[in-house]
């Protein structure tokens, strides 16, 4: 088994102006997904991220505050899951609830060095 990070990009609820009703509906879908993964024992962790961004860039360590140009690229959260392969994580990611809001799931394998 390997560890993978599923990174959720875009679909910022605040910016999309979702109504309380829609938020509740979204929450239910996320909860169902999380419950499914938990039942299979594959989730190792994960969080949602606050959308305020600070960036430190370059050798001068220039600090800049968001919001940055394209919120479609904003990372909204992540899960770390354990799976056989990236293909298996692609399967898991089928249930990500926010594709219809323009969201993206990026799957990255966590690097492990052989001892």
């Amino acid at each position, binding site marked *: 088994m390997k560890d993978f990070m599923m990174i959720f990009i875009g679909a910022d*609820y605040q910016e999309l102006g979702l*109504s*309380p*009703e*829609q938020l*509740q509906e979204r929450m239910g879908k*996320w*909860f169902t997904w*999380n419950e499914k993964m938990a039942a299979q024992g594959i989730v190792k962790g994960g969080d949602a991220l606050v959308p305020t961004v600070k960036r430190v860039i370059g050798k001068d360590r220039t600090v800049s505050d968001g919001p940055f140009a394209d919120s479609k690229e904003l990372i909204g959260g992540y899960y770390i899951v354990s799976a056989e392969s990236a293909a298996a994580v692609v399967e898991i990611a089928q249930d990500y609830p926010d594709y219809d809001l323009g969201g993206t799931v990026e799957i990255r394998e966590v690097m492990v060095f052989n001892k």
Partner: protein
Amino acid sequence: MQHKIIDHLFRHHYGKMVAILTRFFGLAHIETIEDAVQDTFIKATLQWRNQRPDNPEAWLTKVAKNRTIDLLRSLKSEKNRHQQVSAGTVSIPISDLFLDHEIEDSQLRMIFVACHPSLKPQEQIAFALKTISGFSTKEIAAALLTREDAITKRLQRARAAIVANNIQFEFPAPHELQIRLTRVMEVIYLTFNEGFHSTNADNLIREDLCGEAIRLSKLLLKKEKFRSGSMYALFALMCFHAARLESKTNSDNEIVDIRNQDRNKWHVPMIELAKNALTKSAEYKDVSIYHFEATIAFEHVKAVTFEDTNWNIILHCYNKLYEIQPSDFALLNKAIVTIQLNKLNDAKDILESIKYDKLGQRQYLYYGCYAEYYAKMGAMPAAIAFYEKAITKTSNALEKAYLLKKKNLLQASN
């Protein structure tokens, strides 16, 4: 075991929180308050992804309290910069505001604000749906079949009117109460009708509008001072209609008229609720259009089959309605019932007295009624011609399909 989160919890809690915070900070801050409450729900949504609280309602209430304190702080520091900002308009402690009866009290005040005469009718409905019922501008636009920017403007105008007229977050003075309640009932009735009579393709939106109208009238009926025959009759009327909301369209989303609705699918508990309210409405002295409309709705649900419908009582009610509120639309209803009673000469007289241009978007019903009249007379070419005319008079795809179906049936039977 996790708590199941009840339907519409967020939507209803939104209205509660906005009402409580407004009671505390005053209507001048309503925009700030609504933004803060919206933000709370976004945070809850993200936080609850992985771990749902044991008691979501208590959790939300706690967050609302913290939010009140945060807001108080930020408004106070704002006040230091701009002296004119006022905060704190209520003399009871914050924690008391979150007691159930105080929450209801705050929500009721908000209903009277939404229906304040300084707001135009369209603004009243938009404001009520946003602030009391927690709809987004997009949802309001979809519900009212209007563009989103039009709703945004209505909401802005409503808020501006509240500030300009210095409207207070209070109940109307006793001498104004009856007239203000009349307007409240009209707004609830209009909201319900938007849901019930709309040909919105989205069934959920229709149910939501009807549900909200019923919820608000229920809230008002809880308080003795707001009870009246009219309020009970309005509640009864809406429940009778709501009981057959689902039967109004079939699984292909085609309109099913009352003649062809599956009467077994009508919602019996809702009908019982309505009957009780209708009985109660007779215990008061006041009489309103809602009494007669509720009686008509009752006659419809009472009939075991369409053929059993007591059209005489219904005609009597339409006559009364016309006496209280003469309109061409009331005449049209009378004509429709008269045709059912086979009083075709009367029907023709009524139809001829209607100024059809006054019917606006509902003109197609007038031509549809003529078509039925001619069909009963056995004058099929005229009936078909009127159906065709009716079809050209509605832009709604569902209505068009319905009329076309009736026309085709008529043609096939000849």
